[in-house]
């Protein structure tokens, strides 16, 4: 991320739409569709200005028919388009899942490699603003369980743009999860750690590479999306208490950068996974399992998981704050682990 140009901070929403726009300029086969992606610019601004620039032929508002319009990306991509399709909230996946996981994800394999579906499904995740049980989930762990989908979860504007461009250029279906609380929307709380320098020119961030967000020696924190800046803040808290925290931004769950996980545990001997998805049978379990299989001998303490404790996301602010890992929760959990 080193740069000689002046700093050009962008919100993550802006970075995403800039990435899409640059790909649309480069390749006429890149189209965008979904609900309210046109004049409205996407409920979360991920397609802002694209309609104005590229018009209704390439930026298409759809009916509320997720199976049909996500499934349409399958046939369209087989015939040469490279669709970027928005599923407004990941919480709605259940009305369209068959098209996603039984077809989009598997056709390449089932066809022996002869069919390709260069499709990006981008979707909003995360809670923290009282949108309750049907609009606040993360669920990337569920998609990562199913073969054939790349799963990316950027934590800042730089990665968001670079990974969007990489996702569009990828010949595989990519599930692109953006956390609402990182987008810089104004009407939604947003962590300003996500608003970073974003080069104007096109660039890619390779899918499948974790990043050491901050070095440390006492404990490794593994996270994606909004949990990364929260972990960074917890790290800062703990620095004052003499605890040196390494934060690993996994960035991509599929393919998973197992080596970076192992390397970090080998260095710190302690591991905590911080996750906004449900605790059980998800991301926090997978990272723990990777460590238990491949880095067990480096561990000084049991692995710790901090995640949504297997409850639906409650509406009430105080209840929601009790179940979504906060900076305080993370700080406390790390402290306990290093005690």
């Amino acid at each position, binding site marked *: 991320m080193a740069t000689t140009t002046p700093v050009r901070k962008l919100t993550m929403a802006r970075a995403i739409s800039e990435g899409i726009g640059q790909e649309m300029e480069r390749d006429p086969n890149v189209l965008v569709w979904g609900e309210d992606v046109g*004049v409205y610019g996407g409920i979360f601004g991920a397609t802002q200005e694209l309609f104005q620039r590229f018009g209704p032929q390439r930026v298409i508002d759809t*009916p509320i028919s997720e199976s049909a319009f996500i499934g349409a990306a399958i046939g369209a991509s087989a015939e040469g388009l490279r669709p970027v399709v928005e599923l407004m909230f990941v919480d709605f996946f259940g009305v369209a899942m068959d098209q996603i996981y039984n077809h989009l994800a598997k056709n390449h394999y089932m066809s022996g490699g002869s069919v390709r579906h260069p499709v990006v499904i981008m979707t909003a995740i995360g809670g*923290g*603003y009282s949108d*309750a049980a049907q609009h606040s989930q993360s669920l990337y762990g569920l998609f990562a369980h199913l073969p054939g989908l790349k799963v990316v979860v950027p934590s800042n504007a730089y990665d968001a743009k670079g990974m969007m461009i990489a996702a569009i250029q990828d010949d595989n279906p990519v599930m692109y999860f953006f956390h609402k609380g990182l987008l810089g929307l104004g009407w939604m709380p947003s962590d300003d750690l996500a608003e970073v320098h974003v080069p104007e020119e096109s660039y890619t961030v390779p899918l499948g590479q974790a990043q050491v967000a901050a070095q440390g020696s006492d404990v490794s924190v593994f996270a994606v999306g909004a949990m990364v800046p929260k972990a960074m803040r917890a790290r800062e808290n703990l620095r004052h208490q003499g605890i040196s925290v390494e934060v690993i931004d996994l960035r991509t769950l599929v393919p998973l950068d197992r080596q970076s996980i192992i390397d970090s545990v080998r260095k710190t001997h302690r591991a905590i996974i911080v996750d906004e998805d449900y605790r059980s049978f998800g991301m926090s379990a997978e990272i723990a399992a990777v460590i238990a299989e491949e880095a067990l001998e480096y561990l000084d303490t049991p692995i710790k998981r901090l995640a949504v404790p297997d409850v*639906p996301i409650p*509406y*009430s602010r105080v209840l929601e704050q009790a179940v979504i890992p906060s900076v305080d929760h993370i700080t406390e959990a790390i402290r306990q682990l290093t005690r």
Partner: protein
Amino acid sequence: MDKQVSMYRTMCLIRAYEDKLAEIYTEGKTPLFSIAAGTIPGEMHLAAGQEPVAVGVISHLEQDDVVTAPHRPHHFAIAKGVDLRLMTAEIFGRQSGLSRGKGGHMHLFDPQSHFSCSGIVGAGFPPAVGAALAFSKQGRKNVAVAFAGEGAANQGTFHESLNLAALWKVPVIFVIEDNQYAISVPKGQSTAIAKNSDRAQAYGIPGVYIPGNDVLAIHEAAEEAISHARQGQGPTLLEIQTTRLYGHFQGDAEAYLQSGEKESWRQQDPIAKFRTHLLDHHYLTPEEDQLIQKEIQGLVDDAVKFARESPEPDIREAFLDVFAES
């Protein structure tokens, strides 16, 4: 006549309630529509202007008839008799709310009045069919009514549910609220035909389009549909033209509307029109109207007061009710 005034009263109550929530919604928020902050956090979909739909239909229902409603649920909830205090406390996320703050504005559940809603578009159709199936299996004379927006009529559940209900001939009425927009997408950009009610033909059931956002016309059409269902004649599809007087959600700048569109809706306010009708026919005097306004304002204020005074839920609440004890 009494019935008309009673419907008028309910419509006024809904409107007063929605106006009050709109007012409170910006309370404690900087910027004005900051979604996570304030007395009422989260999304807020108000139904002002759509009162005729809820009242015209639900005024035929008994307490143990079922209503499933969408993400824009208040008018249906109030018409169905959901307790205003408990509902308001729920929307405020408080301990005394319907669900002790765990559901919220889009997830109001009241088994007492057999009311529920969901934040997922089109999700209320199948449960309504299921409730109607239960009624017919149990020999109950009840009906179920599924309400949804015109945008929801393009969701697969619409098709599957109407076919299933028609096939099983269960007592369910499907009501499409045609407020002409699904967020920013106008009906013409989402729906291949002009009237969803014509889709009834695909299931061999009656389909009726009711223009005018007129509670009496709605009441009449609903009467036929509901008695049809109660008599074991199976489902009906109603589509009702209406207008959305607030934005899709509070904070919606509505830049996508045609110029003048909103104003024309405002000029056709269904409550004002209904009031004129009642006054003209002397079903209502201005004095009675004032009494009604006062009374409903009292109810709304009382509910808001109740909600404000209710404590936040205890943190432990977050961990309860994932599973029921059998």
